[in-house]
């Protein structure tokens, strides 16, 4: 669902995703110098991290992160 992970092998630790995410879901693991998904439930699936990551390290699927409520049928 939504943001899955940052591929550790590919991540260069540049911090672009941490800097850009409108929902603030990423944090940097300072020791490993890798970004990771700290708050996956907040992802809004805007694809901005995927688009901006220079290493193509973002793994996400297009379905929503949160439970949706439908008023009918």
């Amino acid at each position, binding site marked *: 669902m939504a943001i899955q992970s940052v591929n550790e092998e590919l991540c260069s630790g540049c911090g672009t995703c941490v800097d850009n995410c409108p*929902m603030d879901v990423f944090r940097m693991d300072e020791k490993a110098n890798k970004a990771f998904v700290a708050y996956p439930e907040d992802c809004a699936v*805007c694809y901005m991290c995927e688009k901006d990551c220079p290493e193509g390290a973002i793994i996400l699927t297009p379905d929503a992160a949160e439970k949706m409520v439908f008023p*009918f049928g």
Partner: protein
Amino acid sequence: MAARETETYDCDVLVIGGGLAGTWAAIGAKDYVDDVMLVDKAKVSKTGASTFAAGAMLAPQVGDDLDVWTKEILDRGNYVGDQDWIEVILHQQPKIIDELETWGVEFERDKQGKLARTVGRAHTSTQILMFHGPQFMHVMRKQVATSGIPLVERVMITDLLTSDGQCPSKGCIVGAVGFDVRSGAFQVFRAKSVVLAAGGVWGDSQCARNLTGDGIAMGYRSGAEICGMEFAHPSEGWVFDRKYKVQGMNLWQGAGMYLVNAQGERFMEKYSPVLKERAQKAELHLAVAKECVEGRGPVYIDMRHFKPEVWDRFRRVLPNFMRLAEVLEPWKRRIQFDFGTGAINAAPAGIKNNIFSETNLPGLYVAGQVSGFPGHGTYSVGGFNLAACCVGGRRAGAHAAQYSKTRASAEITTDQLERLEESVYKPLSLKNGITPAALNIKIKEVAGIAESLFRSEKGINTILNGLARIKAVLPTLAARDYHELMRANELKNYLACLELIYRAALERTESRGPHCRVDHPYRDDIDWLKRVILRSAGDGNVAMRLEPIPVYRYSGKPEKFERVSPAVPPPEVK
């Protein structure tokens, strides 16, 4: 625990919120004073509704008959729009578009290289330009930086500061407080005037899940008058296949999408015989819901007949939507179409303001969705919002700057600072309370019921009682860290906005635009060309008054002042 760090800033004009309206406000203020600051809880160019807008902006050009445009906007907004604002926007927007082009915003062009205009949601004479999705806000960020306006990012503003230290206040606005959502540092802004541009009550809709009505809620707490809440669309999040949230509806409407029910019928022909699927947003929502409630669901969206050049244009204008489209292939199949509720598009709802963007609180100016787009009525034509963000944003900034020149200094009171700091950080001190994520689901279950669309006195009271139960749980809302503290404070604001929506909805005993009362199923132009205005009476109570709309002096008015059937009548439930 070590004492919390506090960072203090001083400025002439503080702009809260860095979407399209906020960036324009900052630029507009900087034309008149030096000391302008812009604060946002995320990152300017990646946040706000405008970043995810459907690439459509209302665009009058020299030679258009603006009287015809004005009348169309008033008509499509169900005659509760403010004509003075419409005229200001239509007259000032062409200059804005020239500037945007100079700054580097990419618009679609025709074969001769001229700006391409088209029709989308509810346009007949009015027209829109198509801009290239998120690129627009990157240009705005660059322009703010070029103007030398400092950005304070990842800081969530939680409350306004008032000269008398009271909420609601009888004084004026002198700044704001908040916290850094990563370091946790308390943030104090002393400002001679404030532009609130952190609007939008979008709940969990689309890409902008952090639009939780922060601006409207903090304005309300400070004593600002709120109006148009009953016209907040109780549904925004368009959903494909019941799991993918999508954006770009305005342009699909313009490209000629079909909506069909389970029987294969293009049902919009019944409800809006002329515009059909290009009808106003409210009519689309209510029609989709009515089809489902009356047993003809689910509804499907069909775009299979779009020509390849339309998809090519969407790749430029709607890159986010096209990323999903590559997975769902709407060119090959029709797709189940729903909307989630509990998500709200509050475009016509916000803090009451005049054409100088002034509110009832001296020193407080509003722009963008916080302003409720007074010209928009119940949500008139597609792309009006974005034009209003540009024109209204610049005007709010300019007038806030001029007001700031009349103020020697901004005096804040220590005891108000202490009270607000304690309340902002309180969720951190609770270890076993309810989490923001769990509370959010509870809110959706209360507010996301069919009665939020098809309203009655009984249904509205059910929702209000549910919201009151959730409000009672608020003191036990807990946050593990500063990120969750942001979510907790957002939910507090979101809940406050929901309560105002249903308070106003209870008061308005007619049906107009998205506000559909099954117990009052007619638009009442005899008694209800009025605004419902809400204000905090303190102690958790809401004060309410009605204000007539001066339609007598407007060029666009209903043909007759009578009760008329709405385009989409309430459903008949067997």
